[in-house]
């Protein structure tokens, strides 16, 4: 079995944490950087095996879960439970919860000015007084996200049917800002699920278990392809997602959400964090 691997990226600044399906890009600045990164690396050693030991429960609907042992697993369970009633499993929060935990270890060392853990686009971040964090949504007519110390946002997550996890909806992307990455992760997943046109002939779906036998989505139908949609259909799907996002906002689960389908988007909450992009392109 492969052990966790941690390597420095070419810039000599960021680290890459890799273990099984987990890939994290990690950065920290401030006098506590070395100690914080060392703590994070130590913690990373056991994160995946802890999750794996409770994997069966983590893949069950959250209402069926008995209290979980692991710290990350418990955080996933809490983040998912906030969205009951409705189908959700703790796995909807896994990427965000891992990012939160590694970030927590970095910051626990003290003297960290700014840090982030990027878990495949789900990001946990730490900011002190003068630091800011800028993020750009890479495609489409997207705003730029700028976060300051004053903002309560410490987690960013993105979900969509073309992403790595299967989605029940048709959103190209839903980006959520929340107080933790775990909260952002589960909300992005569920808002993306809600951007949907049930029964629409342009949407092809397949049973999740046929695509990925161990999927926490079981026999639920996930999106595998979306043909061209009329502007009315796009608006209708986005409206459904926006309604769910507004409910998340009013319950305090999220701070803002950005929903995109094709070239059309909706913004829910906190416009002060979203600025129109400069005219630059992201090249790989």
């Amino acid at each position, binding site marked *: 079995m492969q052990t966790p691997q941690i390597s*420095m990226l070419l810039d000599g600044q960021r680290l890459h944490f890799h273990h099984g399906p987990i890939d994290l890009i990690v950065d920290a600045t401030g006098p506590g950087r070395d100690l914080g990164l060392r703590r994070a690396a130590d913690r990373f050693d056991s994160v*995946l095996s802890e*999750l*794996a030991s409770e994997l069966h429960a983590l893949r069950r609907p959250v209402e069926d879960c008995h209290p979980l042992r692991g710290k990350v697993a418990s955080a996933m369970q809490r983040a998912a439970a906030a969205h009951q009633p409705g189908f959700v499993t703790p796995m909807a929060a896994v990427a965000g919860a891992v990012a939160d935990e590694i970030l927590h270890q970095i910051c626990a060392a003290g003297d960290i000015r700014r840090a982030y853990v990027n878990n495949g686009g789900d990001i946990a971040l730490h900011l002190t007084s003068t630091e800011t964090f800028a993020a750009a949504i890479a495609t489409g007519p997207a705003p730029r996200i700028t976060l300051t110390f004053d903002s309560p946002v410490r987690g960013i997550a993105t979900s969509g049917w073309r992403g790595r996890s299967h989605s029940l909806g048709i959103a190209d992307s839903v980006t959520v800002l929340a107080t933790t990455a775990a909260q952002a992760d589960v909300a992005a997943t569920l808002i993306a699920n809600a951007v949907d046109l049930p029964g629409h002939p342009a949407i092809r779906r397949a049973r999740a278990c046929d695509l990925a036998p161990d999927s926490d989505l079981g026999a639920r139908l996930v999106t595998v392809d979306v043909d061209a949609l009329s502007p009315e259909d796009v608006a209708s799907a986005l409206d459904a997602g926006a309604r769910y996002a507004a409910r998340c906002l009013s319950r305090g689960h999220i701070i803002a959400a950005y929903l995109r389908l094709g070239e059309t988007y909706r913004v829910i909450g906190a416009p002060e964090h979203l600025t129109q992009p400069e005219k630059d*392109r*992201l090249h*790989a």
Partner: protein
Amino acid sequence: MDRNRTKPADKIRCDACPVMCYIADGKIGACDRYANRGGRIIRCDPLTVLDRRIEQGGEIRPFLKADWDGDLVAGDDLFVTAVGSGTTYPDYKPAPFIVSREIDGVDFVTVVTEAIFSYCGVKVKIDTDRHLGREGAVVRAKGEPVGLMITSEYGSQMMSLGGVDHLTGGSKPEGRVTCDTLLRLCNREPVELSVDGGASAILQAGQAPVVDGHREERMRVGCGSATIGMFAVQWQGLVDEVVVVDDHITGVVSEHQAGKVLGWPDTGIRIKGRRSTPGRYFQVADPGLGWGGTDVQDPLTILGDWNPKKGARPGLTLLMVSTTGEQYGYYVLDDDLVPQPAPLPEALCPSVDLIAENCEPALCTVMFMGGAGGSLRSGVTKNPVKLTRSVQALETRVTVGGAPAYVWPGGGITLMADVTQMPDNAFGYVPTPAIVAPLEFTVSRADFRALGGHDGSVRTVDDVLEHGGEYGSATRAVAKDRG
């Protein structure tokens, strides 16, 4: 984890990481990196070994160590390619495999990696005279722009597809469709493309192009003028006039230099279009999908009135033929000097067949082109520019999936390689989107050390075959120098 949990017998457990997925045959694990193939856990694309001794054109077969006779490590017959080697993007550690082998007593090092190309595309050469679209026209797949028509070559239409502006510079669907199109073309799958203001075509590397539903069988023997030059002697004495219809240069034997040297008499024929030199005409019609790449369906439409003062007479015979011999017509002037269709005389059949026989099969050729710049080089050496210089000085040989790569002069390592010379499914992609291509650098051990290579990571071919790499030990063998 509950170790007693039972699963159906057709699933096996991957132990690459603590998730320990149960994976059914043909499925991949949660990480998208490991799969169950035929009851064994493998890295999704097995490391590919090219064995020159496997019969050419032989099927890919699973590599079994028992199949080898033991002396495979010596010599140049066996070459570890980068297909399935895994990648270390963004290359903060040595490439997945750095392999040493001996060629003629010299210790050579081959560095293999699956390189992620953000800057890449394909140049497609399509052997057809049929007009696909004007130069500069946008080429689309599934409605998304993926490239453009570029300068035509002799007997071929050319496309340039992909590139960073389509992959990551446009909309998300544009990037996704572009990546998919490149991937399919590079893996020698058919792709349907349409040209703005032009035709639609189904293209596949190593296969004949299909233009607007018509499968192109032959690549023209030459332009209309060249065809006259090649075959004038064959027609002499059998027919009074021959016109070879071609969108580029339509040839007329009685006026052409090749006819003149044979003493071919004038016929009073008049061709619409712009005369270049005697017997050679540009622009006899518009470009299209008809005769010789023109829009002509009835070849008589390119002819003007026949001039009796210059030799036109009732009973004069005329052969009109396209540059591939695919279309032809035989005519006889009536009393009003109007050509009337007539059956092709037996005696002329061989000359038309000869044109067809001299044509080569029409093919699509796909050349992968990409820039192996940036961080990729640091998988080979601690000092990346030294690798660039070594490649440019021809000390380091570059191959793509074992296929020789032409490296452009000038800065960087910008290369082109023929996808038909690579193993099947040599290419992959990442969601960036960008293309993942196998890339091998081969250099003598001494030069490898001199350019600061990761010498400590060098392993023998034996060792790689025996133990595999970090990403599993599955290997497959395919014929080298495939046809």
